[in-house]
């Protein structure tokens, strides 16, 4: 054997200690949960296993791999725990994530409802007018020191991207692509791509779930302060509203609102914490279809109402009503043709008690 071959063997052996351990693998397999066996292969497999050395005293009791109740953070394999680190560059056009969710069901929500153990934000600064929209270099990174529960509660309710593409303005300016890396106790992790740019029109994504919810400004705040910002209360006077909520693609008003704020013409506003169920019912009774994100003017009276339905956690749902436009009602994902049955209910709610 040559010196090189000797060296190769030695180098390989020298890296033995860096390999993951069987205990890590067992934890991952627990999450992967292969399906239960069927009769027919169980017996021969068992006989073969009996030939193998028996490891006594296993803490993994029978049925645990196949029948364990799923935790909020579960699904695919959990990788070995190691610190999250920012990719050196943002490899593709936004939204892009360096890896799909691991140990997390990333298909049903942007992030799990569980509070992460740590959060890392990676920033990649550029311009939305740059010719090259991929390969932006890492410009900064920051580990969040607070607001992680807030982060989870806000992002977990972000809505799916609508089927129809959104119409966007085309304002040129600086753009920052962010990657938010979240790590959970037990080793699960997820990356979320978010972008802050003048048009607020780049979707957010975890690689499996893409959301039209705007989170870029919140990420910029978190990157600057080191804490995820608390959600801002609904206001009729604010130009930017963090609206859009999971479930608004199947119901005009998803279940569970705890208050409603009505912004009406002539600066009339009203917030109600009770007595608005008639409005919810009226909106959810309307025949709906996926939104086309636009309407055409029709003859007759006009007027605009913005109605915010707020929830204990996460962003509100904004239902816009444009009297004199067709279709007249939309929540971003769904639209309904006529507001004739809804406007009287709103007017009733706007009356002083």
């Amino acid at each position: 054997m040559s010196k090189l071959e000797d060296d190769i063997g030695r180098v390989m052996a020298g890296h033995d200690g860096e390999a993951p351990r069987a205990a890590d693998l067992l934890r991952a397999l627990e999450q992967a949960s292969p399906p239960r066996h069927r009769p027919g292969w169980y017996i021969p497999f068992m006989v073969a296993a009996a030939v193998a050395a028996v490891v006594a005293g296993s803490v993994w009791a029978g049925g645990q791999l196949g029948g364990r109740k799923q935790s909020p953070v579960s699904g695919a394999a959990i990788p070995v725990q190691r610190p999250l680190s920012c990719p050196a560059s943002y490899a593709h056009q936004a939204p892009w994530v360096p890896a799909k969710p691991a140990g997390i069901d990333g298909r049903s929500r942007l992030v799990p409802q569980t509070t992460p153990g740590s959060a890392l934000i990676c920033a990649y600064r550029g311009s939305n007018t740059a010719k090259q929209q991929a390969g932006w270099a890492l410009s900064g990174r920051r580990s969040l020191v607070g607001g992680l529960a807030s982060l989870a509660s806000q992002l977990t309710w972000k809505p799916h991207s609508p089927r129809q593409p959104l119409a966007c303005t085309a304002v040129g300016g600086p753009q920052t692509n962010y990657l938010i890396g979240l790590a959970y106790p037990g080793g699960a992790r997820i990356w979320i791509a978010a972008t802050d740019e003048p048009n607020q029109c780049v979707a957010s994504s975890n690689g499996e779930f893409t959301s039209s919810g705007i989170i870029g400004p919140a990420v910029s705040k978190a990157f600057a302060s080191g804490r995820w910002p608390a959600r801002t209360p609904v206001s009729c006077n604010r130009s930017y509203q963090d609206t859009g909520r999971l479930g608004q693609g199947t119901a005009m008003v998803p279940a569970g609102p705890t208050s409603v704020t009505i912004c009406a013409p002539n600066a009339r506003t009203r917030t109600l914490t009770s007595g608005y169920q008639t409005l919810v019912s009226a909106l959810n009774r309307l025949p709906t279809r996926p939104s086309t994100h636009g309407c055409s003017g029709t003859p007759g009276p006009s007027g605009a109402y913005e109605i915010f339905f707020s929830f204990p956690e996460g962003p509100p749902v904004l239902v816009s009503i444009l009297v004199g436009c067709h279709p007249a009602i939309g929540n971003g994902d769904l639209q309904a043709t006529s507001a004739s049955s809804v406007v009287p209910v709103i007017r009733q709610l706007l009356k002083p008690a």
Partner: protein
Amino acid sequence: MHLDDVLTELVEQSGDRLLRVAYQLTHDAAAAQDLVQEALLRVYRSVRHRGLAPEDWYAYLRRAVVNEYVRTRRLRSSTEIVTDVVPERPAAGCLEDRAADQAELWVALGALSERQRAVLVLRYYEGLADHEIAILLGCREATVRSLASRGLAAMRPLVAAVSAEEEQT
């Protein structure tokens, strides 16, 4: 005993060895775990479907790991995870440091093609004979010798350069 107990037992019996082989192949702890997990589940489903069980579980699973590595590495080449950690290279004047040489060799091993690396791992880490490697990879023994020879040839210039610089210092 449940089937899942059997799978657990296999992991406890062979998991560490399989993970070490997988790490030699991937040079990445997370990728190694994914590789072994994929191979285990693949074997699990396959054996369940066919109702047959191998006599030597470790060899069977090792074969699954190596073939899964060779099969998936090409597929993953377009979706490699980008990292800002680059392998450290020995600084000029520090080549007498054996650790630096070993780091270079490790990096050079990582730069080989997947089949070359698989052959070298099976030959120098697992200590298999070429005919055994040929069976494992499903190729001819001559192919194994060729892959090993080309892999070593790719690494020799590096070792020669390091040795030459060592002699100068």
